[in-house]
């Protein structure tokens, strides 16, 4: 099977049971995507598939034939940071760094959802969204950070979103 990862077509013959997460980490060698729980309960494995943020641990690689996959490595590199990555550095939106790629991928997807006008659990109106701190917190709650850089993550995303 093949899929596009960060703009490059990859061929892979993974075990039928392999999650997309394990294929990225163990077969493709892209270890920026993290495994924290392997059960959709922490968000460390968040990537973008066809532009949407998902938990890569809870999807089979084999189901992603021809899909367009974006991981943290495709968002920006250490010497060419994406604005969100730079904002996470500036605002100390991490400590140990393990949840960080997932947070950033999640934030990329989340901002796109906001652009589409999607409401959240804390939106007062379902059809008009103003991205403030509580909105960001709610929308980022699928990404645990045990070091708890949460307030800094909110600051970093706010800066990039102009919120």
């Amino acid at each position, binding site marked *: 099977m093949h899929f596009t990862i960060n703009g490059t077509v990859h061929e892979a013959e993974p075990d039928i*049971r392999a999650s997309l997460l394990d294929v990225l980490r163990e077969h493709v060698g892209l270890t920026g995507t993290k495994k924290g729980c*392997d059960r959709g309960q922490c968000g460390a494995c968040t990537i973008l598939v066809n532009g949407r943020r998902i938990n890569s641990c*809870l999807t089979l690689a084999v189901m992603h034939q021809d899909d367009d996959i974006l991981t943290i490595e495709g968002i920006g590199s250490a010497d060419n940071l994406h604005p969100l990555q730079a904002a996470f550095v500036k605002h100390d939106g991490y400590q140990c760094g393990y949840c960080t790629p997932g947070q950033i991928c999640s934030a990329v997807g989340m901002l796109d959802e906001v652009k589409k006008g999607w409401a959240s*659990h804390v939106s007062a109106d379902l059809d008009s969204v103003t991205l403030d701190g509580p909105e960001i917190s*709610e929308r980022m709650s699928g990404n645990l950070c045990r070091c708890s850089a949460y307030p800094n993550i909110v600051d970093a995303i706010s800066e990039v979103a102009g919120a």
Partner: protein
Amino acid sequence: MKTFDYARADSPEAAVAAGGRFIAGGTNLLDLMKLQIETPEKLVDISRLDLAQVERREDGGLTIGALVPNSDLAANAHVVDGYPVLARALLAGASGQLRNKASTGGNLLQRTRCYYFYDTAMACNKRAPGSGCSAIGGYNRILAILGTSAQCIATHPSDMAVAMRALDAVIVTLKPDGDRRRISIHDFYRLPGDTPQIETDLEAGELITHIDLPPPPAGQQLYRKVRDRASYAFALVSVAGIVSVEDGKIASAALAFGGLGPMPWRDPAVEAALIGQAPSDAVFAAAADALLAEAKGFGSNDFKIPLTRRVLIASLRELTGASA
């Protein structure tokens, strides 16, 4: 995870003919497969079927494709306008990532989050029929107070399905023999009884293709969820409520509950206690009495009984505009 055969279906008909376990979003099934709680021999990938549209019918109702992701359904303009209770329920569930992957049909079929169901070292009648129920006599904070049996006290974890139940959704299926069925959500779920492993009315190989909603109901809509974290946690109790008041009296009421029972819970007695009455705390209390008449706690979930009473009363106040 045990190994399995995999096939991708390119039509609903091919899917039901393929003879296997359907996988769409996979966010619940794969978790259970990793733990070998689910061990399908064959997976039929239905994720690319053309069942991801939300369409408005001529009668004013909605037909929702079974593969519409939860996040898309919550953001759909028809849902936002006519069924805010559904949008709110969806947004109260899981996380942004999971909602992007989880499908409407799959959400209805979520399996319980009972600790002991998930723990293969422990007895569970739902997972291993006849092995016993570890939750009775164990830790059961998140488990059921209504509709339980001596074999199982699991709860259904969905938020979405609670709103669907308040909205009288109809589940449309395709059977392997080509027949289609329309199953009212009120008939879709089963009580555990002596067979807690059987959770729905679906037959082997039967595929959910759509969910139909009747035209938007009159009145106010609300979804209130109580949980241990501010987000990303299953409901301890939730209420989906739709109430209309005319001439100072409750004209219609639909109330469904999450976190209380083995299925999204709805009890006609609750609505009977409300309809025709002028909104008041006494009436709301009578509705709560009706809901909780048969409620039974199992120790660590006893608190759900007073909690549900309070949440129901507060929700009815909000829905009817009545003040304390």
